């Protein structure tokens, strides 16, 4: 690799990396919000909340993320809404991963033992209070590892935003390659960067899990709830 290549490529790739990180963070925030909204929605007593939540989850899980991203960017204008590429991309990422993660929220809350529910009823606590003060706080430690997986998944999926012209790492790599060749080096470099990032997230998640574990109980609940790694697709 010539030093020309290095000096040309490095700033561009760094910019791309920053965009990738930005999209990952924004996407994760939207995904967490969506996951709680949809997950709690599916646990609601009211049918008019449960059903839309279920429909939302199934639609966003069942149609492909790629399609969703392009739809938000290319199809929405037909309704008069023109989104910036970044907005369309983050929206698609957040809603899609959020729909998958809704199952994490739903699963870990409903796997709280019946006994906890009964204790709350015995003490005269209404449903909202029960959720807010007792069930959700207990469920958070169990939710952390799967949410860590969600974040890694999101990181990998950010590469797709390059397809809707967002200048992330993958986009910049393509650009550098077009200008300077060195196809192998460029793509291998970003592959390694993605790998390092995903390992960092995984490590951070394990730390969070240890920090917030209630006790061994929370880990066995995760297993008992039969939660699968979210979103198998590494895109």
């Amino acid at each position, binding site marked *: 690799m010539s030093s020309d290549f290095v000096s040309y490529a490095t700033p561009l790739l760094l910019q791309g990396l920053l965009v990738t990180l930005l999209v990952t963070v924004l996407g994760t925030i939207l995904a967490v919000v969506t996951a709680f909204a949809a997950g709690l929605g599916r646990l609601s007593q009211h049918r008019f909340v449960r059903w839309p939540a279920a429909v939302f989850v199934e639609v966003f899980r069942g149609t492909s993320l790629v399609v969703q991203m392009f739809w938000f960017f290319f199809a929405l204008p037909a309704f008069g809404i023109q989104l910036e590429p970044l907005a369309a991309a983050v929206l698609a990422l957040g809603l899609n991963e959020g729909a998958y993660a809704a199952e994490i929220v739903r699963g870990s809350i409903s796997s709280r033992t019946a006994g906890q529910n*009964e204790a709350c009823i015995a*003490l*005269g606590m209404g449903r909202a*209070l029960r959720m807010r003060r007792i069930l959700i706080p207990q469920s958070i430690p169990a939710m952390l590892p799967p949410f860590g997986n969600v974040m890694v998944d999101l990181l990998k999926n950010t590469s797709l935003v390059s397809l809707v012209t967002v200048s992330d790492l993958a986009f910049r790599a393509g650009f550098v390659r077009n200008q300077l060749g060195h196809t192998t080096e460029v793509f291998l470099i970003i592959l390694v960067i993605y790998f390092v990032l995903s390992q960092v997230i995984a490590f951070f998640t394990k730390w969070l899990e240890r920090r917030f574990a209630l006790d061994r109980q929370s880990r066995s609940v995760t297993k008992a709830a039969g939660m699968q790694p979210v979103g198998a697709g590494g895109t």
Partner: protein
Amino acid sequence: MISFTNVSKSWGDNQVLRSLDLEVRAGEKVSVIGPSGSGKTTILRILMTLETPDEGLVTVNGETLWDAKPGTTPRETKQMRAARRNVGMVFQQFNLFPHMTALENVTEAPVRVLKMDAAEARERAVDLMELVGLAKHLDHKPPKLSGGQQQRVAIARALAMRPKVMLFDEPTSALDPELIGEVLNVIRELAHSTDMTMLMVTHEMRFAEEISDRVVMFDHGSAVEAGPPHEIFSNPAEERTRQFLRAVLDR
């Protein structure tokens, strides 16, 4: 204080309660004994609105808790909630909130449900924790407490809501033998020093004999026999009762 009139409940083909009529006077301490699956726990669970009767009338402190007609599904009403507030329950599995300290477990419901002032709730909670002998464990979380200690916290938690009726669902069945005594001591203290109405399902026969005003023998969904402890335990009238006591007491 409590009355069951013609209460029935089935789970599928299994008739758990058959047209049960039961009355408990205010301040009375009643123990319910009998084999597993006889329906005794269901009585408590219906009183705590954890289960719905198929048919019958249940009242607490004069207020209607359940008024179930066959074929319809009774729903939760304001009246039911008002009646329920008179009842507290201690569970076999304790069911303490693991993410809160013992003290927080006891203050949570008074503050959130009774809208009690936090400082006042804390004061009362400390008193209750002293009553159950756990004044030194206020800031411990349930996983750090032994089973016996957890159950005593559970009793304090239920008492904090000032119920008129306390239900005990096999309170010592999940405990190691050496921890049973400390919990029974607390319940005994409650029975002797308060005029709270107590309804207890238990396998601890000697204890039931000691503290009860009345003992009810339950089997296959019906009350087989009821009477003062010395009658039931020494000279039961019914054969079924005799059978059961023989099997349980001659271990």
